[in-house]
C-alpha cells in the first residue's frame, strides 16, 4: 500500500515548487509535489517552459526555459523523499493533524502545505479574440511562431514577455508590431535594446487593440486610434502577452489572505502566509519582481520554514 502521509505537500510543480521539493528533501521532509501533464494551469515545469531563452539564472549563461525546468525537476527527483504526481489538485482543507489534499484521482495528507500554483496567461477579451483563438490569436510565441513564417503579426502587451515574444516572432515573420497601451515598453533594458535594433519590429505605443477581425482566421486588428492614417492594421497573427492571472483560488478556503491582485500575502523573510503551516512562493505570492530565480529562493525558504514548523511543533505522523 502506498503511504499517503507527507510532511510537506506542494501544490504546483513549476521551478518554485520543484526547488522547494528538492530543498525539503535535503531537510529530511517526506515531500509530495503536484503538477499537471497538460493544460496551461499548474503544468509540470511551469510557465518558464514557454520562454525560449533564459539568460538570468545563475550558473547557466544561456539555456531554454524547458532545459532549466528539466534540470530543476531532475534535481528534485534525485531525492528519494520527493514524489511528483501528475494530478490536478481540486481542494486543500485543514484537518486535525495538518491538511488534506484532494486530487481528481486520490487524497493525501500533509503536515504543511506550500502553494506554488503560479499564474496562467491572461486572455485578451476584445471582440473576436475568443472566436479566433488558435486561428491567428495565440498565447505561446515559442510554440507557434514558426507557423507565421513571412507573415505579419502583432504582439499585444509591453512587458518583458511581450518583448521576448516579439524577438522570437521576428526570427520567422516578415513584420512584427508590438502594440502597447503605455508610453514606452517595460522590457528589461537588454531586450529593449534588442527590439530597437531589430528592423522587423515596430512598436506602437499609447494604443489598444479593440477588436480582432477575420472569419476563419485573423485578417486584421482594429486599434483605438489612428496609426499611419488607419485604425485597421492588416496582419495574420496576434500574440497576446498582457500579463498573467494569479492562481490563488485553492488558498481561499484555508483562510489565506490575498491582496487586491489576488496574490497571496506572505512574510517575505519566511514565505509564511497568515495560516500556520501554509506557505506560498513564486508567482502566486505578493511581490513586485517575479522571476524564476526569486521563486526558487522563496520555495527553498518555504521548505526551511516548514521544516522549522514541524520540528517546533513536534508534529508526528501517528
Amino acid at each position, binding site marked *: 500500500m502506498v503511504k499517503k502521509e507527507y510532511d510537506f505537500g506542494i501544490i504546483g510543480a513549476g521551478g518554485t515548487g520543484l526547488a522547494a521539493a528538492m530543498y525539503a528533501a535535503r531537510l529530511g521532509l517526506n515531500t509530495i509535489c503536484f503538477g499537471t501533464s497538460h493544460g496551461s494551469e499548474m503544468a509540470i515545469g511551469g510557465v518558464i517552459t514557454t520562454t525560449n531563452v533564459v539568460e538570468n539564472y545563475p550558473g547557466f549563461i544561456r539555456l531554454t526555459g524547458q532545459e532549466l525546468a528539466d534540470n530543476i525537476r531532475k534535481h528534485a527527483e534525485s531525492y528519494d523523499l520527493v514524489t511528483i504526481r501528475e494530478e490536478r489538485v481540486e481542494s486543500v482543507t485543514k484537518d486535525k493533524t495538518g491538511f488534506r489534499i484532494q486530487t481528481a484521482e486520490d487524497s493525501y495528507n500533509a503536515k504543511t502545505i506550500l502553494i506554488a500554483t503560479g499564474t496562467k496567461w491572461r486572455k485578451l477579451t476584445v471582440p473576436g479574440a475568443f472566436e479566433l483563438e488558435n486561428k491567428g490569436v495565440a498565447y505561446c510565441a515559442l510554440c507557434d*511562431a514558426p507557423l507565421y513564417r513571412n507573415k505579419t503579426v502583432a504582439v499585444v502587451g509591453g512587458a518583458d514577455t511581450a518583448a521576448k515574444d516579439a524577438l522570437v516572432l521576428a526570427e520567422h515573420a516578415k513584420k512584427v508590431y508590438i502594440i502597447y497601451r503605455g508610453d514606452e515598453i517595460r522590457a528589461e533594458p537588454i531586450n529593449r535594446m534588442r527590439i530597437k535594433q531589430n528592423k522587423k519590429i515596430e512598436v506602437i505605443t499609447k494604443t489598444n487593440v479593440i477588436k480582432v477581425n477575420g472569419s476563419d482566421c485573423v485578417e486584421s486588428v482594429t486599434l483605438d486610434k489612428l496609426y499611419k492614417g488607419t485604425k485597421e492594421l492588416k496582419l495574420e497573427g496576434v500574440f497576446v502577452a498582457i500579463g498573467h492571472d494569479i492562481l490563488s483560488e485553492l488558498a481561499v478556503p484555508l483562510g489565506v489572505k490575498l491582496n487586491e491582485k489576488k496574490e497571496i500575502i506572505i512574510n517575505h523573510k519566511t514565505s509564511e502566509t497568515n495560516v500556520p503551516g501554509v506557505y506560498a512562493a513564486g508567482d502566486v505570492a505578493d511581490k513586485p519582481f517575479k522571476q524564476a530565480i526569486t521563486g526558487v529562493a522563496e520555495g527553498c525558504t518555504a521548505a526551511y520554514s516548514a521544516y522549522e514548523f514541524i520540528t517546533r511543533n513536534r508534529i508526528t505522523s501517528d
Partner: protein
Amino acid sequence: MPAKKRPAKPKVLVYSTDYCPWCIKAKEFLHENKITFTSINVGTSTKAAQEMIKKSGQQGVPVIDARGAIIVGFDERAVRKALGMKPKKFKLW
C-alpha cells in the same frame, strides 16, 4: 501463392515545432510508452502546416493524429484513450 498483405496500421502523427514545450512532452510520452510515431515539423513545411490546419481546424501546436483521432494540445488522457492504452493510475517520476 503470394502472402496476403496485412492492412497497414494507421499511423500516429505529431504535428509540432522545434521548441514548443508541449510538443516535446507529447513526443516524450509516446517514446516512453513505445508508441511508434512520425514527427512532422510544421515550422519548416507550409504543406505540413496546411495539413495540420485542415485536420484540426486551428493553428496551434501540438496536434496529435492518434490513428485518426485528432487531439489538439498534449492531453495525455485523450491520447491514452485514442490509442487504447490503460488509463494512468499512478505515476512516479
